[in-house]
């Protein structure tokens, strides 16, 4: 089958509608159809010659099932500084759009360096006069309040997240928001237990910390940053991503409901200039950044002279490694979940599949079958699996890299699902016949695109998996426990998922090796990055 050329027209027309890749008849064993044949299941390939493919059609359609809860998004948000909403000094606002409809959702304030400065002043004031003096047990109770309020208003926040960022409502409802609440709940309990965080040393807060978060899990990334910072006794100036600020501003309102003392958390909104002012501010005693490796390096250079403490959680190109003895259907599910969850906008997403050659064909066939039942569409429809790509910019980037994959000779496959007529959407995509030299095997695409490579032996899998400048996560699928542990020992990745993928918990430290960053978030190890050892 010829590689399919992508047309360079509107993004929503992208993609081929080919059905399952069928193997050349000449490649198949010729088998007689007797009893023995019926019993022999050690098949290399996925399908017997001549057997009609399964039909995943429209016999039973799911009707639209829109989520109707009110997200309570204001028409406009100001900056949140010193416990109050304050207009930006420049008077400028920018629109935040819904990537599924391209309509404006709300107007967000544009913070200038002067606003960022006000935020740091408020944070320092709060730190010196209130927060550092407060006993841990009382700080903890504020954070518990935040957790409970977020649980109360979970549905509202979930809808807001989907509208502003494009992710499917069942993900924001079932994952993002509950997990964000859990992060606050977990870290609240550490506030009066810091004596156990660093055996042999006393811990103190760092002071005022600056934090910049990305657009892929807006509320969740906010909770990963703010919860441990507050639990350890720090005060915060945080900038959400410019395309997804709505839930951060709603969170600010929630902080007022929780009666968090003024200035403990300050939220300034804006884009690159605001971010640079935030990370470069002299009052910041630590900077925590989650985002692209490229911007991470910029910040590191910016802070080189001052030597500010930093943690970086950057990009990834994780290998999901499937051995022939793995639980196959669950591995298929894990691979699908690993790269198509959240439209592939996941730094630790399993964007490379390394599948053992002996099962490669049948595994790919199963993947393709599974992709037939993935639904791309309106993020607010409860049955949508894959929502909108976060921005036109990101969509263009994905298209560009996918085109390079085709141009470099990899074989593309996309299921035949329909796409909405407007908004930024991309079909789940897989490439077979990928090698390490292909750009799609080395560069982070940050979209629903899976690059599939094969391997023969465990050592080869390890080599290929580690052959990257990234080192955030990896997946291992096998029935053999000792192999899991050996792989875990050899893989250069900060998180290794065995017989599962994309699992997160506030108690579980998360972070990367190499150019995926340094520092950890979650667990006891994560707290160490928010304290000073005395």
């Amino acid at each position, binding site marked *: 089958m010829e590689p399919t050329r992508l047309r360079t027209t509107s993004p929503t027309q992208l993609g081929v509608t080919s059905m399952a890749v069928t193997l050349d008849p000449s490649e198949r064993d010729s088998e007689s159809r007797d009893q023995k044949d*019926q*019993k022999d299941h050690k098949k290399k390939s996925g399908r017997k010659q001549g057997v009609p493919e399964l*039909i*995943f059609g429209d016999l039973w359609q799911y009707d639209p099932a829109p989520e109707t809860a009110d997200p309570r998004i204001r028409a406009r948000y100001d900056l949140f500084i010193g416990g109050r909403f304050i207009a930006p000094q420049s008077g400028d606002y920018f629109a935040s759009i819904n990537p599924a409809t391209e309509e404006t959702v709300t107007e967000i304030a544009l913070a200038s360096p002067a606003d960022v400065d006000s935020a740091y002043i408020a944070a320092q004031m709060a730190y010196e006069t209130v927060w550092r003096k407060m006993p841990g047990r009382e700080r903890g109770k504020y954070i518990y309040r935040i957790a409970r309020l977020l649980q109360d208003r979970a549905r509202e926040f979930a809808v807001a997240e989907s509208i502003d960022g494009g992710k499917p409502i069942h993900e924001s409802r079932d994952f993002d928001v509950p997990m964000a609440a859990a992060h606050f709940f977990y870290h609240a309990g550490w506030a009066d237990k810091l004596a156990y965080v660093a055996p042999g040393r006393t811990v103190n807060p760092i002071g005022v910390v600056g934090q910049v978060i990305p657009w892929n899990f807006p509320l969740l990334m906010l909770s990963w940053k703010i919860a441990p910072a507050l639990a350890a006794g720090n005060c915060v100036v945080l900038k959400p991503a410019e395309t997804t600020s709505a839930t951060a501003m709603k969170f600010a309102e929630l902080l007022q409901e929780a009666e968090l003392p003024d200035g403990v958390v300050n939220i300034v909104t804006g884009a690159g200039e605001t971010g640079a002012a935030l990370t470069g501010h002299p009052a910041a005693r630590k900077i925590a950044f989650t985002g692209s490796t490229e911007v991470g390096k910029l910040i590191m250079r910016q802070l080189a002279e001052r030597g500010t403490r930093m943690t970086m959680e950057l990009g990834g190109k994780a290998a999901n490694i499937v051995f022939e003895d793995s639980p196959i259907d*669950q591995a298929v599910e894990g691979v699908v979940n690993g790269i198509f969850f959240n439209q592939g906008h996941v730094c630790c997403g399993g964007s490379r599949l390394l599948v053992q050659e002996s099962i490669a064909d049948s595994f790919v066939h199963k993947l393709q079958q599974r992709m037939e*039942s993935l639904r791309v569409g309106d993020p607010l429809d*409860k049955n949508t699996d894959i929502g909108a790509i976060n921005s036109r910019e990101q969509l263009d980037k994905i298209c560009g890299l996918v085109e390079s994959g085709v141009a470099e000779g990899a074989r593309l496959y996309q299921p035949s699902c329909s796409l909405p007529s407007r908004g930024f959407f991309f079909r789940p995509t897989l490439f077979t016949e990928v090698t390490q030299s292909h750009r799609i095997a080395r560069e982070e695409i940050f979209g629903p695109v899976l690059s599939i490579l094969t391997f023969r032996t465990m050592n080869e899998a390890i080599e290929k998996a580690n052959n990257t400048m990234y080192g955030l996560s990896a997946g291992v699928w096998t029935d053999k426990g000792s192999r899991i542990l050996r792989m875990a020992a050899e893989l250069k990745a900060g998180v290794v998922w065995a017989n599962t993928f994309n699992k997160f918990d506030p108690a579980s430290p998360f972070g990367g090796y190499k150019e995926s960053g340094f520092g950890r978030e979650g667990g006891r190890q994560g707290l160490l990055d928010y304290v000073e050892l005395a």
Partner: protein
Amino acid sequence: MSKHSIVEDFGTVDRVGIEERVAKFTTRSIKKKSKLWGLHTAVSMVDLTTLEGKDTPGKVASLCQKARQPSDDPSIPSVAAVCIYPSLIREARKHLADSPIKIASVATAFPSGQSSLKVRLQEVKYAVNAGADEIDMVINRGLFLAGEYDAVQDEISAVVEATGDATLKVILEVAELETYDNIRAASFIAMQVLRAGDFIKTSTGKAGSSATLANTQVMLEAIRDFYLDTGIAIGMKPAGGIKTAKQALHYLVAVKETLGDAWLNSSRYRFGASSLLNDLLRQIHKEKYGAYQAPYYFSDAAGSY
């Protein structure tokens, strides 16, 4: 295939992974026309069951009438089959002679299967001669758990032969097999000697637990893999524990997303159930006319409160 590793022969299933997968089926939101289609289809897939020691001809007569006409609404289809003990087949035939509804009978010393093979086969023949269209058999769990997989399969073959032209449904009794690996293996062991149009079935309904989305999913995936390997389409019947329309819709979502359109009909999928039927009717009524219904508006309802 003697005492091989069944994992080596048939593959392994990760419990946590498959339970996560089926949990996703329960988050599908099925509304309006889609819901009505699902509910109607589910009704058409019901094997309306009574398997009690205290069953009488009167009970079976009542069951058959309910099967033919579940409700006064003519748009609601009849069920697929009635499922009864062999001694009541003749009674059922009196009431279903002119109907497309199948008569399914259990046999092979249901539910335990603990009797000689000879006696079990005799029972199958008895049921077939009495007029059963379908036979629901139980596999030999004792032999299976002792690792005698060939023997288990040979017994199923013998029952296939004794069943003749009737359709055979093979009950694995998943509760007693315990592990998902075992359920997957037992599925293949059965399917390898079945004919297209036969079924594999989860439970007798008489053990501690019955069908769940997860154990059913193991079997659906086995059916799928077997089909793609051989071209032979085997049907699926979860039985026991499916009481509500909401559950039934989840089970149909599982079929849609695992086996696809070709299995969404009663020649390849059945629900082994009794009280499920009335809950389906209640929900159909609500979808069509708007108001939630009390149970006692529907014939043969239990519970008076």
